[in-house]
């Protein structure tokens, strides 16, 4: 039931908007429809991943590739998977939640999410607006920053929960 609170609040807000600014309401509903059209195929793919992971990948494998003992392999995997993953960030939360349950390191989750911001198909557009050098330098710093963000997130989150990892 807790999962429905936020959508319930949003429906209430939409109802208020409907009675106060009807044109904004219709525009927002149209926008919701358009975003859902683009998001649902990726979300469906994520759910297929979850099914396949649950079926074929056992928690000890997650530990090897994304857990405490993963080492450099885990960092590289998180960075590359983050860069290659498509769609908006929130469609990947269910999969990460599942992997977290199976033992994925906090730092790798955070690093994966940070690298979601590097969009390879959009780089030509960024180059168009800001130039090649700017885009390359920013992208390089973002990859480095993703590791820093991952480490700091893990230190803070796991330390306060009493299970700090190195």
């Amino acid at each position, binding site marked *: 039931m807790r999962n429905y609170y936020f959508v319930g609040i949003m429906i209430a807000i939409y109802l208020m908007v409907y009675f106060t600014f009807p044109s904004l309401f219709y525009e927002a509903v149209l926008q919701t429809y358009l975003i859902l059209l683009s998001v649902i195929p990726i*979300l469906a793919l994520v759910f297929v991943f979850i099914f396949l992971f649950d079926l074929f990948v056992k928690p000890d494998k997650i530990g090897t590739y994304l857990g405490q003992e993963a080492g450099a392999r885990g960092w590289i995997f998180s960075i590359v998977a983050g860069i290659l993953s498509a769609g908006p960030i929130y469609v990947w939360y269910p999969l990460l939640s599942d992997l977290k349950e199976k033992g994925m390191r906090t730092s790798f989750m955070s690093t994966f999410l940070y690298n979601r911001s590097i969009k390879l198909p959009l780089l030509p557009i960024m180059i168009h607006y800001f130039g090649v050098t700017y885009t390359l330098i920013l992208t390089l710093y973002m990859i480095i920053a993703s590791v820093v963000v991952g480490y700091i997130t893990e230190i803070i989150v796991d330390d306060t929960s009493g299970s700090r990892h190195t």
Partner: protein
Amino acid sequence: MLNFKKSARKTLNTINQSFPVVFGVVMAISLLIAAVPEYLYSRIFTGNILIDPLVGSFIGSVAAGNPITSYVIGGELLNEGVSLVAVTAFLLSWVTVGILNLPAEMDLLGKKFALTRNIICFIVAFFVAILTVTTLGFIGEI
């Protein structure tokens, strides 16, 4: 041995738990996109080289939508004389910080994780922006 039934049940359970949250986020983002016209972003910058990067980070964190929109707005902001550090902080926080995604992230990945990650990303956006522009200056690109 593979257990299709168990995996299918678990996946359905995940769909049931996560879809309403994701749908709520989509509704929030749609309302913001519909309510805030793009030209409004440029009016919030002050012209102050110290305050503008923070303004950029803040607007980028609250704003939502396709990153292409942030490039277009960022390009316009540069044309209007907003500093490259501020525009870079804006671009970075647009894609790395998600205030509208926060309810979904807290619900599915944990409150502590979501809040910590977003706060760190907000701070890091500021420093990466300064580092990027300093590097560009160092190699003579600006």
